[in-house]
């Protein structure tokens, strides 16, 4: 036999002490805040837990925009380091909604497509948790078909004038900035003529109306743009090129740990109360969780290595959503009349659960993305 060297499938985490230090920092922070009664861990808190103070504490410790270059306020860390921080935050059910979208989605998009000026203008605000972003993508009659966007940006003196309605905009009532997808050209092909913008929420002509969800909470909004002015330098990337840019953005956001850890606080609680008769279903959840976490690590390492792990990221989200829902089903079997805390946590996660499969693509969309990748001629 010729080959002699070993083929351990991945390099050893050479910066393990550094990662451990990051972990410890997050644990200290979340532990302290919980001890001080400043938040209660709960499921789905990366979407529902809005607390700018908490985000600013993280920012002060350099834990937002970690992978971005230092000159725009980033930390120059690896994706693996960011995974470590984010998974600890999710584990603790911490209120991270104020920076999550900016950190995960807007920052990377601005880094890829924004001019140096736009980067300098936008990124430090996210990294310092001064800027809070919301996503103006969906529209009332477009559903998940982004190409059907009707919100229009017309050229104006020094920029653009935007008119239209965006819906399901999470956190718009808290946001300082909106990412906006708008039509700048009306042509034959729906996928063309779309442009990405970054808009200040205090721009005249931008109005936010609440949409209360089935849990009675207010996270969603309808955002109306009425002849709102956006300066020319706030175009993100190339005019008319948004379709390609946004597809990248969406494929990027799928592979993170929030895709399977949304219900981890409930899992932890259910584990504490589970009995030996539940060890087989519990063991299956543990096996899936461990595997999902490995997938998230693979995705992070793959991005660190310069690759675009589209199939892996979509796989992670597809499996992660199913896992999150199965955690809720498992927790139901742990609910007992004498455990009102489990029952309450179960109910809270259940009411949040319809959102899990909506954001970032439903199961059938994810499968079709994978199939498309795999059957390219």
């Amino acid at each position, binding site marked *: *036999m*010729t*080959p*002699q*060297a*070993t*083929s*351990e*499938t*991945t390099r*050893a985490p050479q910066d393990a002490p550094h990662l451990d230090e990051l*972990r410890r920092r997050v644990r200290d922070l979340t532990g302290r805040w919980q001890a001080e009664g400043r938040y209660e861990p709960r499921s789905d808190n990366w979407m529902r837990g809005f607390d700018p103070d908490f985000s600013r504490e993280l920012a002060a410790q350099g834990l937002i925009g970690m992978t971005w270059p230092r000159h725009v306020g980033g930390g120059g860390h690896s994706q693996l380091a960011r995974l*470590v921080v984010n*998974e600890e935050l999710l*584990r603790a059910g911490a209120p991270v909604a104020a920076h999550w979208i900016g950190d995960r989605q807007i920052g990377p998009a601005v880094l890829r497509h924004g001019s140096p000026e736009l980067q300098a203008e936008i990124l430090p605000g996210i990294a310092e948790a001064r800027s809070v972003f919301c996503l103006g993508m969906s529209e009332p009659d477009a559903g998940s078909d982004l190409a059907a966007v009707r919100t229009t940006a017309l050229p104006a003196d020094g920029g653009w004038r935007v008119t239209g309605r965006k819906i399901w905009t999470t956190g718009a009532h808290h946001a300082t900035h909106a990412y906006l997808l708008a039509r700048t050209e009306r042509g034959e092909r729906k996928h063309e003529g779309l442009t990405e913008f970054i808009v200040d929420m205090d721009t005249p002509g931008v109005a936010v109306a609440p949409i209360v969800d089935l849990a009675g909470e207010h996270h969603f909004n309808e955002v109306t743009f009425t002849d709102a002015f956006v300066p020319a330098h706030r175009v993100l990337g190339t005019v008319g090129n948004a379709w390609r840019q946004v597809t990248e953005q969406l494929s990027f956001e799928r592979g993170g740990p929030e895709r399977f850890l949304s219900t981890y606080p409930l899992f*932890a609680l259910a*584990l*504490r109360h*589970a*009995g*030996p008769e*539940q*060890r*087989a*279903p*519990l*063991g*299956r959840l*543990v*096996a*899936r*969780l*461990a*595997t*999902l*976490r*490995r*997938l998230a690590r*693979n995705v992070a390492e793959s991005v660190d290595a310069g690759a675009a792990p589209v*199939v*892996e990221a979509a*796989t992670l989200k*597809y*499996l992660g959503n199913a896992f999150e829902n199965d955690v809720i089903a498992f927790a139901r079997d742990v609910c007992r009349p004498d455990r009102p805390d489990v029952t309450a946590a179960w109910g809270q996660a259940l009411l949040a659960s319809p959102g899990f499969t909506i954001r970032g693509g439903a199961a*059938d969309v*994810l*499968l*079709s*993305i*994978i*199939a*498309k990748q*795999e*059957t390219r*001629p």
Partner: protein
Amino acid sequence: MTDNARELRGLVADVVDDVPLDERGSDRLWATLRDLGLPLVGVDEARGGSGGTFADLVVVVRALAERAVGLPVGESALSAWVLAHDHEVGGVDTTLAFALDGEYREDMSVLRIPGVPWLRRSGGVVVYRGGDDASFVETGEDPRIDEAENLAGEPRDTLSIVGTAGTPLPSAPPMPDVRGRHTVLRAAAVAGAAEGAYRLTRDYVMQREQFGKPLARIPAVAAGLAGMKVAIVRLDAALARAVDRHAADAGAALPARLGAAAAAAVVAAETASVCARTAHQLHGAMGVTREYPLHHYTKRLWAWPGEVGSETHSAEYLGARALAGGEAAVWDELTA
């Protein structure tokens, strides 16, 4: 994938790809694999092995299974690895048997272990009677062999040993360690067979037309195909984790290794089931003929997962550990 893994995969491809599917369990192919030293991968060269690591062995086992090779390279190499703790190896083909898969006659005088891979063609077998009780039994002498096959037609013979037959192996690793490695190797084989079934299925639905377009363009078909891919990506992730835990230099303590092996086994069972079912669904009637190669993979996906401990047992092991260790222990192992 590391360069080394690529090289090993290339080696397997070179040797196997020209052998007709029906002959991939033949003595001749076995002889070729032996000549290349594959059944001794992961065993120290100084002890007669081919060198390389457990990770290398996993790569070889997966690559062979991708090609529907049912020869016992994993069992040979693993039993040789055990033997090498006490002896030089390489003289005869060896295989592996665990008393916990069998039963003693009531008076404890005879131990019967069914399902021993390729026992009939092995010169000896490493038998674990208990945690530290390993011995080597040469098949030329005492033991009785009753031949049997699994669903895929692979030899799974019953070993009957009278009394305390066999040479003790005082330095052998503890049984759970060996069982855990066997579990990982089996999960690797399942990943390979799933990949083989997936490739056939992908090719089929891309080439075959119905209602005037390739089957792959029908959304339900595309979703089924993607579901297979998802199952394989997931199993490979579980496998990578288990292999890392078994790495010689940065390897984990035994319980963590066993946990990762059990997780891989749970995921392998699910992957095998999804991939066999979907491959047949998407192939329709074509897939159920003996002539078409699919069954070489799907029969193995049916037969293999249950042979090294049941999925339920692995799940219960993980669940019991989680209950005992609590959330912090689960999390630490998760993120290790």
